[in-house]
């Protein structure tokens, strides 16, 4: 890893350069005004240093100055806002073709799961040049998934999914840090992100620690083992084509069946009852780990045809 003295982390994602440009703009403004005030203080302090006990003249305020030093900071602030907000919106919206990876954080390690099967602990291997979207949750307290070289960070929450995405632009090995204090070994909840050329990534995939085949097939097994197939497809709403669709609820409102909705339905079904169905789905809280929930969701996402009954 690059050990030379740096002022910036490596720029290894698509947005890193853009964030750094805004950062330079901010330092220019900061440097300019700090220097301005410093020079003014030194200049005025020396020019008007006390030479006698005579009292200085009256100097009232000057409306033009007051307006100027209100409006100019306002305009500069708004320029920073617009730039920062625009880039932020881009950083919040992942491309639809992003490669999905699941992350489960727990005290004090990261568990990473690729949909095609490989699992990792405290590392994340990604291919160069492809957008990657992380779907993340915590098993206990709030953590945060921070990759300085990519300039991305997002808190990882218990009870919910949170997302972050990036497109790596440089092959290499980068720090991964937990960035939300989470207890005793918070400083140890760190890892490495490996960005690899496509070919290297493919060979890594085939050699990596695998689940029994793709994550989704692990999910299919859970779907059967836990008896979901017993109801779903008959007296319970069908899973086919469910992910991403609009679901009408018993109270008349509509929700999108996203990852959070699926997770909640598994762990706390009574929170949202689908219109036309009785509220009899049991809760699987305590029976399924977050990783198993993720596997089930992967499976459900893959269901485009009516599933077979066993």
């Amino acid at each position, binding site marked *: 890893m690059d050990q030379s003295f740096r002022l910036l982390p490596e720029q290894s994602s698509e947005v890193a350069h853009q964030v750094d440009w805004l950062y330079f703009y901010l330092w220019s403004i*900061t440097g300019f005004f700090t220097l301005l005030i410093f020079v003014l203080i030194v200049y*005025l302090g020396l020019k008007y240093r*006390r030479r006698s006990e005579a009292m200085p003249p009256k100097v009232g305020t000057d409306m033009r100055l007051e307006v100027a030093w209100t409006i100019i900071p306002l305009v500069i602030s708004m320029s920073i806002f617009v730039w920062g907000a625009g880039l932020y919106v881009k950083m919040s919206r992942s491309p639809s073709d992003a490669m999905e990876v699941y992350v489960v954080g727990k005290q004090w390690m990261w568990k990473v799961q690729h949909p095609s099967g490989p699992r990792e602990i405290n590392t994340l291997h990604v291919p160069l040049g492809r957008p990657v979207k992380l779907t993340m949750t915590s098993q206990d307290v709030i953590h945060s998934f921070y990759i300085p070289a990519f300039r991305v960070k997002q808190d990882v929450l218990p009870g919910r999914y949170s997302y972050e995405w990036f497109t790596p632009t440089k092959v290499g090995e980068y720090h991964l840090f937990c960035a939300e204090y989470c207890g005793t070994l918070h400083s140890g909840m760190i890892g490495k992100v490996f960005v690899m050329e496509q070919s290297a990534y493919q060979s890594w995939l085939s050699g990596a620690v695998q689940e029994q085949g793709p994550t989704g097939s692990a999910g299919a097994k859970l779907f059967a083992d836990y008896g979901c197939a017993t109801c779903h497809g008959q007296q319970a709403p069908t899973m086919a084509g469910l992910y991403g669709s609009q679901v009408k609820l018993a109270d008349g409102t509509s929700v999108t069946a996203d990852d959070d909705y699926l997770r909640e339905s598994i762990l706390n079904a009574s929170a949202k009852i689908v219109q036309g169905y009785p509220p009899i789905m049991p809760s699987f809280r305590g029976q399924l780990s977050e990783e198993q929930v993720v596997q089930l969701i992967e499976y459900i996402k893959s269901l485009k045809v009516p599933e077979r009954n066993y």
Partner: protein
Amino acid sequence: MTTTPVPFIPAAAEREDNYFNVAYTVKSWLLTIDHKRIGILYMFSVTFFFLIGGAAATAIRLELMTPQGDLVQAENYNKLFTMHGVMMVFFFLIPAIPGVFGNFLLPIMIGARDMAFPKINLMSWYLFVIGGTISLAAMVLGGVDTGWTFYTPYSSTYSNGWVVLTLVGIFLNGFSSIFTGLNFIVTTHTMRAPGMTWFRLPLFVWSHYATALIMILGTPVVAIALSLVIVERVWHVGIFDPALGGDPVLFQHLFWFYSHPAVYVMVLPAMAVISELITTFSRKQIFGYKFVAFASLSIAVIGFLVWGHHMFVSGQSVYAGMIFSILSFLVGIPSAVKVFNWTATLYKGSISFETPMLYALGFIGLFTLGGLTGLFLAALAVDIHVTDTYFIVAHFHYIMVGGTVMAYMGAIHYWWPKITGKMYPEWWGRFSAFVLFVGFNLTFFPQFIVGYLGMPRRYYAYAPEFQVLNVMSTAGASIMAVGYVIPLFYLIWSLKYGLPAGPNPWKATGLEWAVSSPPSPHNFDKTPVVVEEPYAYYTGRNQLGEPLQ
């Protein structure tokens, strides 16, 4: 043969009954209702808590000299930074300037004999001391490791530390704040002397008034937030822990709704001091009096609308992020207005560079830099990268230490003659101010860099490439420590050996300089009548119309 002029000491200062020597018993101090004695009581207690917070900081900076965790164990490090934050934020920064100087000076500056509620004032101090003692007891019993921010569900379910005890101490301390705020507001409204109109008030009073508004409106919210953590932790009621059906981000909203305005509770009183110091040591009216006064109020109001900028990566929506971002830029404008007005006050002034002025000028520079780094954090795309890193730590220390603590040191030196009747040794004062300034910048500027490089906060072991900057920071901290310790010595020394100060060693125009040093127990012999605007140096007279001498 020395040519130091002996200050003119009118007979009033040699009278027996100043507030210090009117009674000497412990009971007369611990049961006092004199706002000046209460200010001194606060001075002792805030100094005590500051030293404890400082000791924790010393241990932290020593640990961080090496990338490995080798000085203390992980859990103890976590307890140390929690103690540092809790002691410094709740038991120094929030109470110090209002408790010491607000209490001591507000009644005198407006021409009153005491606060509106002297007994509630004493109760404020007791709530502060008892709260601080309880939180300190939690530290001694084994400590708490949640960070001063107590994020859930770590604090409400997972931490094994003395969370509830610490929170009880902070809760009580909150009421100290609320009652102090109440006193400031009622006193300013109802007890101004004849002729002391709102726009003749010193800016010190305006800023403390704005502070008091925040104290009263904001503190109850954090009291509730922390109580709910106790409810969840003790009785397992699901409020914040998702495993119990709660929402962890709800805590953050409740906590930051107060804790952001709280930073203005920490900085507005500091700005109050700076307005007094700049005018006195330039012997000039403040440039833009009304603008500075209204800027203080604007900071208090807008400050309540920006809390979500602490939560840009917490799970807030993108839209909420945008709203909080734009408001956060707006809240910086009144502070900029103040900095420009203070600087413009120097124009055509008659400027001297005694210790208080050095601290005031240092404040302006450091607050400018610290405040501008706030713009980095309001900028959404940059905040994603730097939030929860040392960039944030550097930002708030520039404002809290480079700002508030510098202002506190300036206030101590400026009003020392008034409070004690003695002058501190000037060259030692200047030397310490210089040492502090250098040490401070060496401690915290490298943290901006190491933060952008990616070093997260609350890490006791870090990536090796961050070491050089951490060593610089620790070296700076050792210099800063010297800058804090020296004044302790010479200020105590001055109590016995300092030159007698006289009522107005600085030739300042405020009402506090029209009474003896130290003041008599009831401040004024007869009700003063105010005839002049504040800082009217060009007339050569103070606010009572008396010639400055």
